[in-house]
């Protein structure tokens, strides 16, 4: 039995809330209890934003994640703010185009594994601008037992609502991340 407590964080507009929603949708398809809770505030675009996702076999108490066992940090400020909160056995997925964990004054707890992936650069190089979030999701799917590719694909079908081109682009991004 595993409870995933995920925090996704980055600039507004990077798809931080969307990747969180994907995780929740995936959990829902796997028959888990799920919750998704966004930071909300005056900064709709460009400010920092984050969201808490909990996926569990048991009813979810607090939907607010304060010690994530999975962190997606899509920029420097998010890494600095949250890396120290990751649970000792947790994993952090970092967009290394926008932040270098080694330069940060913030340090993770012992036992936290950090996976760096230049997601923004990969997105730009592969005509997938705006899909760095899905590239990181791919990396997360590869490096954890969060869900099978099959479930992720099914969830992607759901959220892209039959738009084939959008689905194909997202799957391309996902696989880029998985293969990195």
């Amino acid at each position: 039995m595993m409870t995933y407590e995920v925090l996704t964080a980055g600039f507004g507009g990077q798809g931080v809330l969307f990747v969180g929603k994907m995780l929740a949708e995936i959990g829902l398809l796997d028959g888990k209890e799920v919750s998704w809770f966004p930071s909300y505030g005056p900064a709709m675009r460009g400010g920092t934003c984050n969201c808490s996702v909990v996926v569990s076999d048991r009813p979810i108490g607090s939907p607010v994640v304060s010690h994530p066992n999975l962190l997606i940090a899509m920029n420097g400020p998010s890494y600095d703010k949250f890396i120290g909160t990751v649970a000792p056995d947790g994993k952090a997925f970092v967009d290394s185009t926008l932040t270098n964990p080694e330069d940060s004054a913030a340090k993770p707890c012992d036992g936290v594994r950090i996976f760096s992936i230049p997601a923004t650069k990969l997105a730009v190089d592969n005509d997938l601008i705006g899909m760095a979030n899905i590239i990181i999701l791919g990396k997360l799917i590869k490096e954890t037992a969060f869900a099978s590719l099959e479930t992720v694909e099914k969830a992607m079908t759901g959220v892209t609502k039959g738009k084939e081109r959008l689905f194909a682009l997202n799957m391309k991004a996902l696989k880029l991340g998985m293969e990195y």
Partner: protein
Amino acid sequence: MEKILMKGNEACAEAAIRAGCKCYFGYPITPQNEITAYMSKHLPKIDGGVFVQAESEIGAINMIYGCAGSGSRCMTSSSSPGISLKSEGISYIVGADLPCVIVNVQRGGPGLGTIQPSQADYWQATKAIGHGDMRIPILAPASAQEMVDMTLKAFRIAEEYRTPVMILADGLLGQMMEPVSFDNKSLPEADSSWAANGHANSRPKNTINSLYLDPLELEQKIKERFKRYEQITEKEVGAVYDKGAKIVVAAYGSTARVARSAVDKARAEGINAGLFRPQTLWPFPKKQLIEATENAKVVLVTEMSMGQMVDDVKMSLEFKLPVQFFGRTGGFVPNPDEILTKIKELEVSDNA
């Protein structure tokens, strides 16, 4: 039953539409905007559906007065500062015995406060929602699914007892997405023989009014209304709770979820803790609390406020048990560890 991920606010709006609510009047305020947005998108597509973005909360609640007074099922929603503005209208709606549903997705106050989640409107909702000798039923959901279920229940109670009913949610419940299912059916058409919607020359005229200049008449009106309050207290009170616990943690809404996590952790460590979660805040589930605390040494009330439910807990227990409080305010959601620490403190002092 198919489950879909929805924000609590959207789930509430969808549940209202499914319950047969055709008219919505509101004004933008964070963190309830998804309700207004959802209604603006979906109500105009329904036959007879009405959405109006009012000029103010005052305007919105008075549109509700007119709409409910003409016999239509209707709803408004707001967040704390906006509810203060609606207060006048709510009193008139009670005075005229009109059914409607009012949603408060609470944020922190006083004043403009914060847009973050809060439970600081407990006193306002349960004790002083409008001027005059009055109450309104207050339902307290703790999940997106309960936002659905309680919305349906709110309309049912509103129409059965001819009273406004408030759903007292908070920013966390409104903004959070959880899986929800909609198995509720539309409510049956309510009796509207009393409504002012044109007598069509086939009945005596109806008047919607809260003014009674004759004290005897007003006293009778109020006493009759309080009889209905007695029935609501008898039949509509709700709570979920563990039995037999030595340390009972009392919490509602979002805080009850956090408290649940804390209580479960305490139990895993061998502490006999339990949760008491009121689903109605007025009427307060007194009998249920007494049952939940039969074996209790102490009650710990936790809230996202400075302790507004504490008095109701103390009075329900007739001051027979020590009642402690732990809360966060200003927009903080407490975390389970904070509550667990408090539980452990109580366990130690109890053993000492």
